[in-house]
């Protein structure tokens, strides 16, 4: 009962702090919402559409022009310019005007008709991997279709049926199933990791910041005394209001992506709730631990921001962890975002049983319990340290 009374007083005090300092409002509500809007609106198309592609058509026949028209009709590519030579088209890539170009040499149609196997080429840049590989896919399809068109005409002339022609041109068909994201939509793929990652960054920073501010404005003693010297009560009272605000933020994010933008998910609502709770408490746990290790506002915040930024790479969502060196694969266990991402993709995105992701669940719980090791150090710091700017 005594603890509850202390807790309620601490919670009231913390709410007052959160309300008075506008920086909390910015970091706990405005900035995360900005990140949410940024990523979801940036990739609203799902896949980049109508990326600029050039043409070097030295053949200039109805056949070559129909290839160009078909390329233009593809979803990802738009033919924006035609160049008189390969050198100029390459320069256009270097000037950032196009991502790729299709080169049709002189005499292509003539050779095609006389079965002399002409060769077309396509050039593309992979300095932007997403754009380059999507444009490459379209160009490759066009080149393959060119072959198929000739085969189709020959077979028709020989009197085969359409079904026979299809079988001859493509004896083995690949029946692709893109589980859980059948559109290959990048928004659903990237926003669901980067937005929670940015929220995690703010959870880390605000946890360390709010502890550091107690020291900076010399309120630490008052804070510990309100809890009667009990560090557990003090920490709980301080971080419960923050956790509630962040939980509300994360639930509004989940509502926005699943109900408004209608991202697909296979897992249940309860998995989403569990994941949100784990995300908030593990990140706060990490923030408190970082501050406990080095009770200086500046150092702990630097460590938190560097850790959170590295987490985006080591989560292994854009570039898979299996492609990294073994020591880095082991290091990734130290990043809450890695565990979050694995839990999310296994239980919410793909809807697999939670037991298969037990390791990452344990990981996040472990981060939640980390402050236990530094409770005494934090209390000691609050009672004895003096803030040096």
């Amino acid at each position: 009962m005594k603890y509850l009374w202390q807790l309620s007083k601490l919670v009231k005090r913390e709410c007052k702090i959160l309300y008075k300092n506008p920086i909390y409002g910015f970091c706990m509500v405005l900035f995360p919402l900005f990140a949410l809007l940024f990523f979801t609106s940036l990739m609203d198309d799902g896949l980049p559409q109508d990326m600029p592609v050039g043409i070097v058509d030295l053949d200039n026949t109805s056949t070559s022009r129909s290839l160009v028209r078909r390329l233009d009709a593809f979803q990802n590519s738009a033919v924006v310019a035609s160049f008189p030579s390969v050198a100029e088209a390459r320069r256009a890539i270097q000037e950032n005007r196009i991502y790729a170009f299709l080169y049709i040499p002189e005499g292509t149609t003539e050779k095609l008709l006389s079965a002399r196997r002409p060769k077309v080429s396509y050039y593309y840049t992979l300095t932007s991997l997403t754009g380059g590989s999507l444009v490459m896919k379209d160009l490759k399809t066009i080149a393959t279709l060119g072959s198929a068109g000739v085969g189709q005409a020959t077979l028709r002339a020989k009197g085969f049926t359409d079904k026979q022609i299809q079988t001859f041109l493509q004896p083995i068909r690949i029946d692709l199933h893109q589980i859980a994201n059948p559109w290959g939509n990048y928004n659903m793929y990237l926003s669901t990791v980067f937005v929670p990652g940015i929220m995690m960054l703010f959870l880390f920073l605000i946890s360390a910041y709010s502890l550091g501010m107690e020291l900076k404005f010399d309120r630490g003693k008052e804070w510990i005394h309100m809890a009667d010297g009990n560090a557990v009560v003090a920490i709980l009272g301080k971080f419960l209001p923050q956790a509630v605000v962040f939980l509300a933020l994360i639930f509004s994010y989940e509502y926005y992506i699943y109900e408004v933008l209608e991202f697909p998910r296979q897992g249940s609502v309860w998995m989403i709730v569990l994941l949100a709770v784990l995300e908030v408490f593990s990140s706060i746990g990490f923030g408190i631990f970082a501050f406990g290790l080095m009770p200086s506002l500046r150092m702990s915040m630097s460590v938190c921001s560097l850790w959170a930024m590295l987490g985006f790479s080591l989560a292994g969502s854009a570039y898979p962890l299996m492609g990294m060196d073994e020591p880095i694969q082991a290091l990734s266990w130290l990043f809450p975002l890695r565990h979050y991402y694995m839990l999310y993709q296994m239980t919410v995105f793909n809807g697999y049983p939670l037991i298969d992701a037990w390791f990452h669940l344990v990981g996040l719980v472990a981060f939640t319990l980390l402050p236990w090791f530094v409770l005494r150090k934090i209390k000691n710091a609050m009672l004895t340290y003096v803030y040096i700017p």
Partner: protein
Amino acid sequence: MSTSHNRFQWLLDAAYVWRQEMKRVFRDEGVLIFFIIVPLLYPLLYSWVYNNETIREVPVVVIDQSRSALSRQFIRMCDASPDVHVAYYAEDLDDAQSLVSRQVVKGIYLIPKDFATRINRMEQGTVSVYCDMALMLTYKAVFQTAMTVSQQMGAAIQTRLSGNYTHREDVITAQPLAYEDIALFNPQGGYGSSVLPAVLILILQQTLVLGIGLAAGTARERNRYGDLVPIHKCYNSVGRIVLGKSLCYLMVYAVIGAYLTTAVPHLFHFPQLASGGNLLLMMIPYVLACVFFGMTVSCLVRYRENVMLLMVFVSLPLLFLTGVSWPQSAIPPAWQGVSWLFPSTFGARAYIRLNSMGASLSDVLPELRFLWIQAAAYFGAACLVYGHQLRQSHRHAHERLDYLRKKRTVRQQLSRRK
């Protein structure tokens, strides 16, 4: 005589400001972390993370219900490809799915019972490919390998069926129109080679802004009235302050910038096509723009920690706005407009094209022009905000002086009354 003397004095004052700022930078460990340690170590760490560039041998599970020579050939060819490794065989889809669920494999190849029968009957055979879409790169590896193998086997089937006489006829039947696939820049499709150049340029801007912000925050907190500009005869005009301070940051970042743009790519064998002169001509406006941008931002924050809360999280959106992760042509116009505010947008674009794509200076002229405009605009902005800070500290000083004078007169009146 007197004008030249004044000019010399002006330079001396600026040099004094520069010396004070240098001292502050190298004595403040918070600033040192962002000016020296992060730019030195972060690129190395990132390069290590991405040094394998691509993923190979993605594990898949095969369900071979056909159990025929053709299906086994398909599996062998997939396994022999560089990108896919057949790690498991499963009896049915449920078995295979539980392997995906346990993250042991990233995809499933299902070859149905009638696969070989249909092909031998001259009907279309089907292979079902199920991909775990949580990772785009593994999805591409699993799907594209199956596509390539099916096309290769298909070509063999076509030539067998068409009853040609010569090898040349076989080739023409399978592919009447030959094509060549040429990746001009970053030909191996490396993830690190595509993302890291932009990251390096971004690290330069972010650490510079964070460092300047922290230094300004410390200066404010050390000052008695919380002012950024101290009352000192050398700090008496905006020009001297801005010149002295920017010179200090410029000197530190001349070294850091050279390390980031030449040493790091050299250490990790990233593409390096730009000549030293071109690189220098691009980096000068970029670093200048970053310095003045950082000085402008540093005046907006009250406490030293706030700059961290503001600047760290924008790093990720800024990386996306450079057009590396998400193609520039697909960025909505509103966000394109926002991206013009930040030097990193144009810096990264110019650097990638010079260094990874071997462009000439005239190819990146628009970006260079934007960088110079930004440098000039942020220089103006820095002068304006520092002018404001200067007036504020003068006002605080005057208020204090008035207060002291009033105090003295009151005291004198009191003593007279006695």
